[in-house]
């Protein structure tokens, strides 16, 4: 199975994880500062800045885009509970 390499810049930890894993699952395990609430793509708590490897994540759904807009998310932001890793290198940090 394809694997992705995800770096959490706030804690300087890189994790290798299988494709399909959600960012929040990895973040929670390594103790990154990405906080979360509902884990269902609704509350916007887990907005995360993707600093590298935007295309190595699944595309945001229409609903995720809506929540990002409502929360005035900046450019290259994703919901960690919705974004799944696809492969390659990804770098993220809490907003």
């Amino acid at each position, binding site marked *: 199975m394809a694997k992705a390499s995800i770096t959490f810049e*706030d*804690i300087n*930890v890189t*994790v290798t994880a299988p494709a399909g894993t959600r960012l929040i699952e990895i973040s929670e395990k390594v*103790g990154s*500062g990405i*906080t979360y609430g509902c884990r269902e793509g609704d509350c916007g708590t887990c907005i995360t800045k993707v600093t590298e490897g935007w295309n190595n994540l699944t595309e945001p759904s229409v609903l995720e885009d809506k929540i990002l807009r*409502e929360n*005035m998310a900046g450019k290259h932001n994703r919901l960690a509970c919705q974004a799944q890793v696809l492969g390659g290198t990804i770098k993220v940090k809490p907003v």
Partner: protein
Amino acid sequence: MSKLPVLSIDNIPQAVALSDRVHWVGALDPNLRNFDIILKTANGTSYNAYIVRGSEGVAIIDTVKENFASDFFTRLESVTHYDEIKVIVLNHLEPDHTGALPELMRRAPQARVYISQKAQSMLKALLKQDDFEFTPVITGDSVSLGDRTLQFFHTPYLHWPDTQCTYLQEEAILFSGDVFGCHFCDSRLFNDVVGDFRFSFEYYYAHIMRPFKDYVNRALTLLEPLKLNTILPAHGPLLRDQPQRYVQRYKELSHSALQSEISVGEKTLLIFYISSYGNTRRMAEAIYEGAMSVEHVRVSLYDLEGSEISPFVDLIEGADGIIFGTPTINGDAVKPVWDLLSSLTVINLKSKLGGVFGSYGWTGEGVKMVEDRLRGLKLRVPIPGIRIKLIPTEEETQLCREFGHEMALDLMGLRQAKVIDIADLA
């Protein structure tokens, strides 16, 4: 000296002339004692709104809290007709400034609303309707009233994302929204004749603007070059006498005094602890010792029982890293720790380094709880906290030293990056 306007709140409200073309049409709220839960006020507040008359129409700048709409409309009607209103500018969408907006839009349906780009979704949420038009503006945009021009400056996070200031070019008047404002109610209105409001001005800054010092500094770079005859804020006295003094004071308040004590290239790490039997204190001392072994880190150790909270908040604001030591009592971190942590919303903590440790008797949940709180406050928590059951052994004390050393290395950007496979994590 010209006769001062006297406003009695018992009389029929009248607009107050600030120049031939500018009037105050706000409202006084002398009985308010608590604002937005977080702010106290000993003599109420004012909701300042203004009218600017140009050769081709009238602009209303901000409105008032809904309960005070009647004063606002009565004052407004004393100097203009609704069909003359061409422009409504909202510098900030909080309800104390937009409470009369729906009714104003109903009475002046031809008027165009001007808000900052960031205010768009808030305006829709506020009015709960989509079927109206407005113009989002950014710094550099302006709107003409014929012989008067309003220019916009986006000043985000002073103190909401949407906030902007509006500048009347021909008269060098800045309508500053909540910036340079304060909760102080005095019917004499002007800063050179009202009572002493210096405390209110500083208190307002400390609670409303202080968390956004970086944004204040950015906004000041936009506003400082402007010629300023008068600053007209959305709360408190109208600053017609030496308005630049208030800009200067914001500048002083937005630079940390503590930074000047720290050398270039040096980082500050604060260790706070509280201890019932001395075990968490022993851990704190070992962490302090470990952190001290890293060059260019200025480490300080504080017993939370030794001070009021306020000086600690000041220290934390200027620090690069903070470590908290808490015992766990009855399944929770102790109250003095939570008291300090709940006092930190007035400062910017984003990306500071955070860490937690503590001794416990039964289960030691306090450390994890405080770690989660630090993450919620947007601190980085790169190293899992240390929990030690009761009295630290020499081995455990060494672990504390290593924790302090690692924290200090992280602060200096010297800590080794870690690579792990998710399968190896529990």
